[in-house]
């Protein structure tokens, strides 16, 4: 933790907030048009219990959806990365599925499994976030230079050994790159579902109730809370990346 690592981002944040406050003040925007940073804290404090329970709902459902996406994405990526035939068969399907804007899927799922709010939300987070993982793992595996395989294969190593000792570790950097994208996507998925579902829970639902009551400070406070959750999740992934794929970082020069 250095001055550059902590101080500089903090100052940048402070400048951003000050600029925002100034913008609202100088234009004389009322509360129902644009909230200013100084409105956020009271809004948060008024609903602090809700923020914590709703925030927790959003967080755990996003994480569960993400874990499912990792499991399924890695599995799919392995199948496509190790077999040409499966890649040719699955890739177009996958691209097609990914091309559908997920916002259109939300009402369908909400109707399909009415009342199963947790399930719906997790499903949405999962569906929106497994694609980058599957693609990165499959590309990582299929672009493994043949010499890497030959080094072990020439000693009589099995396919499984080659996978564990070489292919898997070698794809970890790509995997974590994709996971960073997926974290953000899963978050979007969770919130889409929370906002759209009637009687939903989570920060998305809190945002929706703010909208219904034209409570702009509340809506903005939710946005900030979402940003904070997103940042936490992102840096958890960065930490995991440091632990498991830290070797991929070139020594600073």
């Amino acid at each position, binding site marked *: 933790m250095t001055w550059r690592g902590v101080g500089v981002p903090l100052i940048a944040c402070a400048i951003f907030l000050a600029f925002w406050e100034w913008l609202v003040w100088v234009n004389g925007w009322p509360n129902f048009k644009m909230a200013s940073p100084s409105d956020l804290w009271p809004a948060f404090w008024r609903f602090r219990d809700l923020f914590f329970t709703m925030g927790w709902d959003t967080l755990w459902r996003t994480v569960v959806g993400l874990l499912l996406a990792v499991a399924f994405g890695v599995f799919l990526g392995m199948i496509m990365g190790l077999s040409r035939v499966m890649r040719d068969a699955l890739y177009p399907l996958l691209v097609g599925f990914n091309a559908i804007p997920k916002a259109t899927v939300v009402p369908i799922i909400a109707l399909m499994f009415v009342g199963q709010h947790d399930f719906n939300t997790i499903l949405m987070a999962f569906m929106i976030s497994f694609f980058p993982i599957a693609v990165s793992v499959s590309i990582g595996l299929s672009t493994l230079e043949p*010499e890497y395989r030959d*080094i072990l294969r020439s*000693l*009589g*190593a099995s396919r499984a050994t080659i996978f564990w000792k070489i292919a898997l570790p070698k794809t970890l950097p790509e995997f974590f790159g994709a996971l960073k994208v997926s974290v953000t996507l899963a978050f979007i998925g969770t919130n889409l579902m929370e906002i759209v579902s009637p009687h939903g829970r989570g920060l998305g639902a809190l945002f929706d109730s703010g909208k219904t009551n034209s409570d702009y400070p509340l809506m903005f406070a939710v946005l900030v809370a979402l940003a904070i959750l997103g940042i936490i999740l992102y840096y958890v992934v960065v930490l995991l990346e440091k632990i498991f794929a830290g*070797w*991929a970082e070139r020594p600073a020069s």
Partner: protein
Amino acid sequence: MGNLIEIKGVRHAYRTASGPLPVLDGLELSVPEGGFVAVVGPSGCGKSTLTRLIAGLMTPDEGEVWLHGARVTSPRATVGMAFQNPVLLEWRTILKNVLLPLEIVPTKLTKKQAEERARHLLNLVGLSGFEDKRPSELSGGMRQRASLCRALIHQPEVLILDEPFGALDAFTREDLWQIMHALKAEEPFTGVLITHDLRESIFLADEVVVLSGRPARTQYVLDVAVKGARDIDHLYTPEAAEMLNVLRHQIAIAQGRELPATTRRAAQ
């Protein structure tokens, strides 16, 4: 002494989208135990294919590959390989990279003995002190040395080198040639070296095999007068110049730029 490597009448074609591509056609090669053979030939003639056949990574369409009196049909732990690309694993230290083959092949060495052997090999190639570094912290030449150690750690009978020094600068290359001789003096392996460098071939090998253009067959075999370890000065003798000249002409013939001597005479 019998031949450790025996290749008889090998024919092989790759199946490609535009039909079969014959790569080897009637290849003969034998290497005595403890011998060191260099294989040279035009680019794309099938040299790497030959190494894959010896290593048992593929089987030929026709003909036979024998290693130590046994027909090769699949990979075997008695082979060590090094390529132009050192292919070290970035997430392992140099020491752990060198030890990798021992995680695959059965070994009588204890963990401690294995590590000692790895350190000994690294010392031989001048890498002591770098055991705990990552490959990315080493230069290209150093990485190639580490990859040589990895190829030898499990005491293979056969060491297959596919242009291992091809990507290195001239000085590093000469350095590694000397290291090869030092390794050969300590480790009883039989070597097959693929190379594009004729000087390298006569400096390292006891015998240089010239392959014809694709599909490759054995076109010419040159017996290098000096066997075993030799000094770099050996490359600057009239005998060496004569050998290089012969090889150069053979390569030109293999590339189809020159007619074989007999045909030339007949044409006159």
